[in-house]
């Protein structure tokens, strides 16, 4: 059986400043415990404009305009640097402004739960009408909008979640049930955001890679939300809901969860489904997490810098049967954090990095690029969480020294050669390995890299079901016909066997 390949990728960011204030859990918790908070008063002064978000170097990296390695050309901190002439559309996706996204939430809502004010609807309709990926059919779903009085009433009397734009009430998300806590307005709002940003990512995947959406057989959704009702909190299924919106009429799908590690779990599942011949084209998709907006906002405000967690992230990747060109997913070189692995960093890195390498007889330095948790250090460093990718590269290098594959003096330079600076928003599952896939496709094409490792890690203990940590990894390799040869040899063998059997049969007849 031939390995599956990574065929294409799409990435989106959505600038949602009002949602930082109203829906990010750091802020909602603060409002609950300290309503007169100085932090909440100061917060809006630290919001960035849409233009600032678009020209922010890490964001341009996320949508494919800048190579990750080229981020190093910008001195840190990055928040006061600009990519000159930055555009909202990049090679791999786009950065959508808030008003268009609120419209998209309405478009993907099939239960008439999103209400947008009339004038706002008109404005958004014009804007989305000009969006290259929004068909007339999609835009028509915005309808005419509602009176502001009806929206205010739903918020006041029926616990609807308010939608703001530039601090002005422009709509709401209604609850989907009167008493079911899993269908309340808060959860529907959160889930529609994940769905809408997943849809946008999927649309970019199709567009940027010139795919026929009807060819998609299966969709795996791997965000961090759960949709269901009071009888099944996470019944599902975001995957099929997203597939329906983008017109993937020949697809079904399912949701995979595993905190921040979920995208890499999904990637491996998709590879296995394709490699086994069950499906030819599987899309792995995830939308963003609204709760994480402004997660480190207190530290950013304290350090008098902009609140950088002001975007939702989304991505979509297509895994297809071997085309002989695109990089292959080496399902035989998979690392995983097992129940018995233990939680020391050394045990984790050994399980995720060197165990798969050992299976392939590879050294740490045989992987050109490690894509670990590619969290943007501009966000994490001021919050005291350090530079996450950098720390990972140091650990991988130190393990290399312990295995005598690297000199101690080479540890410092390892990150530069085999790593990249982080550029992904701290949206949990979004930074985890997958942001590099789009850039990797290009780097494989130009021959810049021969192998990459995609690593996902997840903090399972946050759900209070286990104290376990989690992680999973897979090697991506240049397509040189590996794996395919095995299949053709056995086919030939079958033909020889049949011919031989027929010859024997014929000789029996002639006797």
């Amino acid at each position, binding site marked *: 059986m031939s390995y599956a390949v990574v065929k294409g990728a799409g990435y989106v960011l959505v600038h949602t400043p009002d949602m930082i204030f109203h829906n990010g859990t750091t802020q909602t918790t603060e409002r609950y415990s300290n309503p007169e908070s100085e932090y909440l008063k100061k917060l809006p002064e630290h919001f960035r404009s849409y233009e600032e978000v678009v020209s922010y170097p890490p964001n341009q990296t996320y949508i494919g305009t800048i190579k990750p390695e080229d981020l190093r050309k910008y001195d840190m901190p990055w928040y006061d640097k600009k990519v000159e002439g930055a555009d909202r559309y990049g090679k791999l996706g786009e950065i959508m402004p808030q008003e268009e996204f609120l419209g998209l939430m309405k478009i993907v809502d099939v239960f008439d739960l999103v209400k947008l004010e009339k004038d706002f609807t008109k404005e958004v309709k014009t804007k989305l009408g000009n969006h290259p990926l929004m068909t007339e059919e999609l835009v028509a779903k915005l309808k005419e909008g509602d009176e502001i009085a009806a929206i205010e009433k739903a918020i006041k009397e029926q616990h609807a979640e308010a939608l703001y734009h530039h601090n002005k009430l422009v709509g709401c998300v209604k609850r989907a049930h009167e008493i079911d806590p899993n269908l309340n307005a808060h959860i529907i709002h959160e889930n529609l955001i994940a769905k809408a940003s997943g849809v946008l990512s999927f649309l970019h995947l199709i567009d940027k890679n010139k795919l026929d959406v009807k060819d998609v057989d299966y969709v795996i959704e791997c965000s961090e939300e759960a949709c269901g009702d009071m009888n099944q909190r996470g019944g599902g299924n975001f995957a099929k809901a997203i597939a329906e919106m983008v017109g993937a009429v020949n697809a079904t799908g399912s949701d995979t969860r595993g905190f921040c590690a979920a995208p890499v779990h999904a990637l491996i599942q998709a590879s296995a489904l394709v490699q086994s011949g069950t499906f030819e084209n599987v899309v792995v998709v995830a939308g963003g997490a609204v709760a994480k907006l402004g997660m480190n906002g207190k530290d950013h405000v304290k350090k008098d810098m902009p609140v950088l967690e002001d975007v939702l992230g989304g991505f979509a990747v297509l895994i297809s049967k071997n085309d002989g060109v695109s990089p292959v997913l080496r399902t035989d070189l998979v690392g995983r954090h097992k129940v018995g692995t233990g939680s*020391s960093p*050394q045990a984790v*890195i050994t399980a995720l990095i060197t165990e798969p390498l050992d299976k392939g007889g590879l050294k740490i330095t045989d992987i050109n690029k490690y894509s670990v948790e590619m969290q943007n250090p501009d966000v994490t460093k001021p919050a005291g969480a*350090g530079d996450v990718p950098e*720390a990972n590269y140091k650990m991988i290098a*130190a393990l290399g*020294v*312990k295995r005598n594959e690297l000199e101690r003096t080479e540890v410092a330079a390892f990150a530069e050669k085999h790593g990249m600076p982080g550029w992904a928003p701290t949206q949990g599952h979004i930074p985890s390995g997958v942001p590099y896939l789009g850039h990797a496709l290009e780097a494989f094409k130009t021959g810049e890299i021969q192998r990459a490792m995609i690593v996902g890690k997840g903090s399972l203990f946050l759900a209070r079901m286990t104290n376990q940590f989690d992680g999973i990894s897979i090697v991506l390799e240049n397509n040189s016909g590996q794996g395919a040869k095995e299949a053709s040899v056995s086919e030939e063998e079958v033909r020889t066997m049949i011919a031989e059997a027929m010859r024997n049969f014929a000789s029996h007849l002639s006797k």
Partner: protein
Amino acid sequence: MDLENQKRVKDLTEQHGGENVVVLLGAAEAEAAGLAAETVTNGDPTFAGPLAGVQLGLRVFHAVEPDFKNEVDAGVFDDQIGMMEMVLDVDSIVEEMNSIRSQFVKY
């Protein structure tokens, strides 16, 4: 130190007595190690958790400090912590831990 861990340390100390408790830290940076050490000795400096204003004065060490390293099997230490010892800024962690211990430890 997160609130849940503060609660655990507090409960264990009440159960076993401060003289029978040693706290072992694994923080990646000196500053973070210092804050955690301060929490279990002089009380939560952020005044947010169960140890706010509670001066337990516990003995506290970081996993890369020689005080701990010399007490455990060298092979196990190398297997579990050797790699991180190479990665972390051990000197500044030791300095920070010594500073906290000299001020606040009661045992």
